[in-house]
């Protein structure tokens, strides 16, 4: 049994850790161009020269002090004994800032290899890094790589394999010698001033006496001197220095050393990064920033509806042919009428109907991928900071909300980047109001059926109403907890870049795969269950759906839904089923009315006729769309909220969404009926 080497990938946010991790492990974790994409620790296995390596991708951090949940994840893991070697991914195009974390990691005393990423960008800019001097000054190996172009990867693994056991080279010393000798100075890259070093030595001696087997006493001494809460609590020592702020002093001296490194290793610092400044002039303009953002979002949905619908036309034709040809073919194979009904009215109506919306979903995620990989995402936080401040949230909270247009589950998780717990909870509660891609089929189907010419306008309005609902609810919540806006936004704005085709491909493919999987699992099963519940009642097989299990259940809910204009048992059943996944509202409509090709023109006409038969008109349809927009997010989202915020908030979320949905659609229906 060979041993597994645990390799931790760590680095500043947005420096390319996940890209590197994907390149090694073949994983398809999400990559994008904004800080904070990775919020969870992810592991992967790779083999290199007969040895097994467990790679671990971590959320980005700026230092070894933690503020947010994701940073805590990284720090705790790095400090644990599970890590054999640290690969510090350093963004070469932002060397100065990245080296701060590097110095902290080297101080930890574990083997460190620096992966100098984004070397291609450095070259493009006409900059050079002295790759001989840099490792000399740091005392650890520095391997130039490009995670995106996959260069230098085997050299990096080679260095990892070697340095996991061997002690690193001694740094070549350049420090001006102090007045007297301190412990182990020749082994260290970062040496502080005499004043600080004396205290570090004194503290490590004390720590050594009091705590056996701590390992790297120097690191604990530095952290004690910095006043690190965790270390002070767990390893208190009785020593009092004057009240000077040693933490500032330590940070200052680290940066002084970094300035020295930069001046010796970075050649031709004159960067040509003016493109980003130019783009920012427009995109973060104090006046035009918000209108430009709104236009970009409008364009995203315009493309989703127009281009998506265009391709969808072909999918519908295919489904039409299939639903026409399938029953005779099945009968020929000897399938009984019951089985034919299950396959055609149950599965095909449910799953097939959902599949026709794939083009719209595809285009939506393609547009979102461009948005995320271009670097615009964190600008949105800046542009919206003022507006968000008015509702008691940081501009940072807008990023999860935008992600909510794709899927609420990752959006809720992205809220981890928020420091304040109350901000997190608020963001988690309002994010599901943003129309996720699962609600798209509902809007498309009902708006095309009942509003024809104005279909796109109606669908647009759903998105806008969702945003308004989110803002209003957040506003009400901030009134309740009386928290004043803090305007404490602090987010890195990465350079703009052309979205990477590979990254966009992974992003979109993963989402399309999710959608297909959902169609094949949740929606497939929901359709079958629904078919059974609709065709069987307390008296066994029934011809009248109204007497079936589902019918009886739906009828019981009619009085509650009546004020909202949704007092139809079929709608009640569809809404309950929709909690499994919101697309199920569409698929179950197909099953409920026994129309296999629900999305096509002919199928739509059949459903439309059935709707008119039960007295369900345009006003009811609008009310239904509003209800679907606002009511309980799907099971997956609720489960995520429970994991992120606890059971209490998961219930609160379900209740909040359900009551908002009922109130808004009832209000709408009441007013619309009066007109």
């Amino acid at each position: 049994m060979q041993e597994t080497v645990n390799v931790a990938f760590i680095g500043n946010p947005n420096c390319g850790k996940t890209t590197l991790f994907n390149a090694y492990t073949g994983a398809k974790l999400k990559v994008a161009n904004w800080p904070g994409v990775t919020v969870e620790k992810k592991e992967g296995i790779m083999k290199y020269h007969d040895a097994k390596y467990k790679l671990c991708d971590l959320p980005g951090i700026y230092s070894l002090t933690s503020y947010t949940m994701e940073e805590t994840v990284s720090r705790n893991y790095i400090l644990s004994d599970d890590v054999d070697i640290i690969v510090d991914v350093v963004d070469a195009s932002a060397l100065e800032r990245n080296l701060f974390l590097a110095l902290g990691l080297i101080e930890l005393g574990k083997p460190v290899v620096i992966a100098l990423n984004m070397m291609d960008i450095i070259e493009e800019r006409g900059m050079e890094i002295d790759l001989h001097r840099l490792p000399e000054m740091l005392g650890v190996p520095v391997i130039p790589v490009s995670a995106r172009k996959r260069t230098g990867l085997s050299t990096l693994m080679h260095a990892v394999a070697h340095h996991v056991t061997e002690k690193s080279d001694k740094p070549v010393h350049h420090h001006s010698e102090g007045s007297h000798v301190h412990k182990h100075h020749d082994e260290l890259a970062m040496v502080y001033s005499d004043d600080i070093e004396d205290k570090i030595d004194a503290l490590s001696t004390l720590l050594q006496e009091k705590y056996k087997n701590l390992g790297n006493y120097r690191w604990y001494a530095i952290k004690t001197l910095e006043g690190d809460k965790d270390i002070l609590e767990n390893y208190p020592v009785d020593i009092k220095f004057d009240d000077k702020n040693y933490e500032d002093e330590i940070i200052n001296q680290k940066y002084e050393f970094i300035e020295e490194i930069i001046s010796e290793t970075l050649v031709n610092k004159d960067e040509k990064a003016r493109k980003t400044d130019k783009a920012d002039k427009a995109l973060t303009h104090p006046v035009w920033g918000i209108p430009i953002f709104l236009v970009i979002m409008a364009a995203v949905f315009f493309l989703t509806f127009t281009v998506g619908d265009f391709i969808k036309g072909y999918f519908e034709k295919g489904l039409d042919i299939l639903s026409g040809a399938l029953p005779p073919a099945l009968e020929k194979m000897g399938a009984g009428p019951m089985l034919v009904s299950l396959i055609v009215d149950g599965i095909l109506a449910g799953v097939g109907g959902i599949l026709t919306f794939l083009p719209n979903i595809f285009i939506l995620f393609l547009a979102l991928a461009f948005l995320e990989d271009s670097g615009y995402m964190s600008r949105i936080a800046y542009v919206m900071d003022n507006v968000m401040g008015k509702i008691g949230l940081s501009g940072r909270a807008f990023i999860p909300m935008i992600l909510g247009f794709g899927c609420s589950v990752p959006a809720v998780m992205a809220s981890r980047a928020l420091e304040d717990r109350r901000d997190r909870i608020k963001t988690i509660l309002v994010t599901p109001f943003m129309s996720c891609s699962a609600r798209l089929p509902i809007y498309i189907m009902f708006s095309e059926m009942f509003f024809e010419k104005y279909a796109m306008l109606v669908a647009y309005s759903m998105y806008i109403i969702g945003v308004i609902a989110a803002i209003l609810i957040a506003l009400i919540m901030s009134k309740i907890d009386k928290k004043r806006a803090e305007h404490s936004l602090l987010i890195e704005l990465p350079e703009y870049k052309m979205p990477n085709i590979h990254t966009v491909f992974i992003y979109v493919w993963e989402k399309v795969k999710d959608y297909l999987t959902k169609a094949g699992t949740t929606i497939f099963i929901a359709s079958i269950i629904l078919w059974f519940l609709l065709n069987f009642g307390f008296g066994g097989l029934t011809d009248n759906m109204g007497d079936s299990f589902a019918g009886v259940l739906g009828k019981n809910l009619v009085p509650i839904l009546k004020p909202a204009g949704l007092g139809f048992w079929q709608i009640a059943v569809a809404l309950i089923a929709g909690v499994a996944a919101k697309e199920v509202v569409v698929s179950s409509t197909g099953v409920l009315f026994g129309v296999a090709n629900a999305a096509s023109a002919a199928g739509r006409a059949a459903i439309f006729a059935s709707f008119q038969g039960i007295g369900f008109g345009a006003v009811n349809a609008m009310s239904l769309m509003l209800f679907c927009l606002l009511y309980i997010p799907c099971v997956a989202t609720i489960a995520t909220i429970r994991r992120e915020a606890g059971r209490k908030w998961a219930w609160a979320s379900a209740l909040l969404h359900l009551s908002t949905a009922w109130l808004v659609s009832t209000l709408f229906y009441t007013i619309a009926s009066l007109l």
Partner: protein
Amino acid sequence: MRLVEGKKGQTYTVKAINAEESLERRLRMLGLTDGSFISILGKKRCGSMVVKIRGTRFALGSAVSSAIEVGGETECRKL
């Protein structure tokens, strides 16, 4: 003066940070040490701004830009 009163297109030197400990520590770790340079690339009326610290762009909310005490205005130099 405070950074929030600064002008777009100017570079300042950091004199002090008057914020609660966690925010101050955070800014320090990003390289905002006393004597370091900070350039204002963009500014909104409400006081939030886009700045460059040690070669990296950051967006700061008004509370953050008000907490940074600066001096020594110069033309935006290439940082």
